[in-house]
């Protein structure tokens, strides 16, 4: 094994803190069972954010409509449970599959155009899904949402109960499995070509990378994972509402990813933890005007510089003039 191979492999090896982090995550529902519900939420939102990282952090597509896949996965799973069968795993698969299909179709809309065009188009897709869910109220329950989504026992044995422990473990397990999958993907040659597309699309084409084909693949994958998060959401909370498709969901998940840091997968998880805990804390203080503080946070975050957020020692230094990449 030459020096080059060693360097490359070092980059993709599991760091020592990773298994520790996951062990802690899985111990949490048992250690603090009263917080099982929020642990569940954090896992779901984290998964959603990680799926966005795939297209935003690794491929460089700024999307304002990622909630479309989240909502579609959620509604698909909920409807499946109500109309076909209540098995959670099959429902999860249905949610993933439906969202992935939409992702594939939507990928054709982000292949051409500037950042602005893509922003518009992703926003448009999100809004269309919201409109559709609203108008097809005979199916989706419209503004009232789908109530009474009752899930069967997980793997035939673990009932979903009110204390949320089963739900938390369900979400954490799905999160871990999908996370490992995505981790594998972004470390692979395929993942490297995504980063190439992000950094310099022109050069990526000039070394033979079929950019559009890759975009379709990653968009489909990201949509599927977002759909999984949505499915987990409706399955563990027992209902589906239009809120899943709302613009603020797309904006929030982008904020979460940015807080944690784009382009390193764990950023989605870190951001989810910080965001959810912050939201819990602030909502207790100012329940109604939570969006104001989020807005202020965003403005300050960007003015100060995103990459400095997770490095508190840089907060009071002057920003360097050498531009750091987005």
């Amino acid at each position, binding site marked *: 094994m030459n020096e080059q191979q060693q360097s490359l492999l070092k980059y993709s090896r599991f760091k020592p803190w990773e298994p520790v982090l996951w062990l802690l995550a899985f111990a949490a529902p048992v250690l603090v069972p009263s917080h099982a519900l929020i642990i569940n939420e954090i896992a779901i939102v984290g998964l959603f954010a990680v799926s966005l990282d795939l297209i*935003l952090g690794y491929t460089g597509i*700024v999307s*304002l409509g990622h909630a479309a896949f989240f909502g579609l996965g959620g509604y698909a799973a909920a409807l499946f449970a109500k109309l076909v069968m209540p098995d959670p795993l099959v429902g999860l698969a249905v949610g993933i599959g439906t969202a992935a299909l939409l992702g594939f179709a939507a990928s*054709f*809309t982000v292949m*051409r*155009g*500037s*950042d*602005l*065009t893509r*922003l*518009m*188009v992703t*926003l*448009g*897709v999100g*809004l*269309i899904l919201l*409109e*559709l869910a609203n*108008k097809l109220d005979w199916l989706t329950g419209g503004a009232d949402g789908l109530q009474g989504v009752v899930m069967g026992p997980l793997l035939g044995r673990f009932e979903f109960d009110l204390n949320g422990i089963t739900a938390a473990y369900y979400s954490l397990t799905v999160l871990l499995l999908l996370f490992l999958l995505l981790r594998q993907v972004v470390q692979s040659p395929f993942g490297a070509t995504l980063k190439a597309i992000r950094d310099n699309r022109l050069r990526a084409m000039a070394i033979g990378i079929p950019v559009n084909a890759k975009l379709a693949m990653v968009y489909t994958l990201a949509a599927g994972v977002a759909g999984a998060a949505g499915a987990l959401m409706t399955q563990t909370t027992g209902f589906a509402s239009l809120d899943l498709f709302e*613009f603020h969901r797309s*904006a929030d998940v*982008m*904020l979460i990813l*940015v807080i944690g840091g784009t382009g390193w997968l764990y950023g989605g998880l870190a951001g989810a933890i910080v965001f959810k805990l912050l939201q819990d804390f602030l909502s207790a203080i100012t329940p*109604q*005007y*939570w*969006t*104001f503080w*989020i*807005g*202020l*946070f*965003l*403005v300050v*975050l*960007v*003015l100060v510089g*995103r990459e400095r957020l997770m490095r508190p020692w840089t907060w009071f230094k002057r920003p360097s003039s050498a531009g750091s990449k*987005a």
Partner: protein
Amino acid sequence: MLTLLFDGIAYGMLLFILAVGLAVTMGLMNFINLAHGAFAMAGGYITVLLMQRFGVPFLLCLPLAFLGSALLGGVLERTLYRPMYHKPHLDQVLFSIGLVFMAVASVDYFVGSTQQIVQLPEWLKGRTELGSGAWMLGMGHYRLFIIAVCAGLTVGLQYVLGYTRFGSRLRASVDDQRVAAGLGINVNMVFLSTFAVGSGLAGLGGALGAEVLGLDPSFPLKFMVYFLIVVAVGGTSSITGPLLAALLLGIADVAGKYYIPKLGAFIVYSLMIAILIWRPQGLFVRKGGK
């Protein structure tokens, strides 16, 4: 049907006035400003508050709305927006979303979330009808007023852009900032004044539109898409592009909601996506331009 066309044109012209500032600043500063709707909202609320609390007549409120929003825009440009110009687009998006959230929550806190009602003066209420049957043209007087004001502003804008020194400085800065600065054009001033005027126009549009489009704290979020559609489809290299795009959008939206109410806004969004896929630079961009 003619009435629909008329209503669509009125809506389109209103959208144009609301969005033209965004088109110009996007072409000029290459800045994705999703908070543009907040300036429109500001104009609307200034008008409503002046009318309700201070009894200021409607017509006087319009220029005041313009001035108020322009002032707000100028201050924000100088303080907050300027450091953002060279940041990546993602940062600009996050920044402007943050501003919108703050604006929406602030208005909600200070004024409340109910729909604001604008009491139009008597001479603007009412309707004239020409012709009869299927070819009847029903013209609401207020919509006539809107068309008149917006048409006048459009002509004024074209004049300023095409025939004044400021206009040529602006066009030079849009084409190539560095060269313009090298020619001695004070690009910072151009940015500041353009942004202020653009925001002022948005405020005026918000004031005009309060009666037609409704006014509540969620205004910037609800209409943000429409403004962006006008800019994305119309392009940022002229003002006729956004004008045509706005008219197209206005007519399509009104007609769509009338003929196929079940699908509503769905048509507009799909149309937009289709257009942007077909011509990513916008429908009305001159060849070789930005």
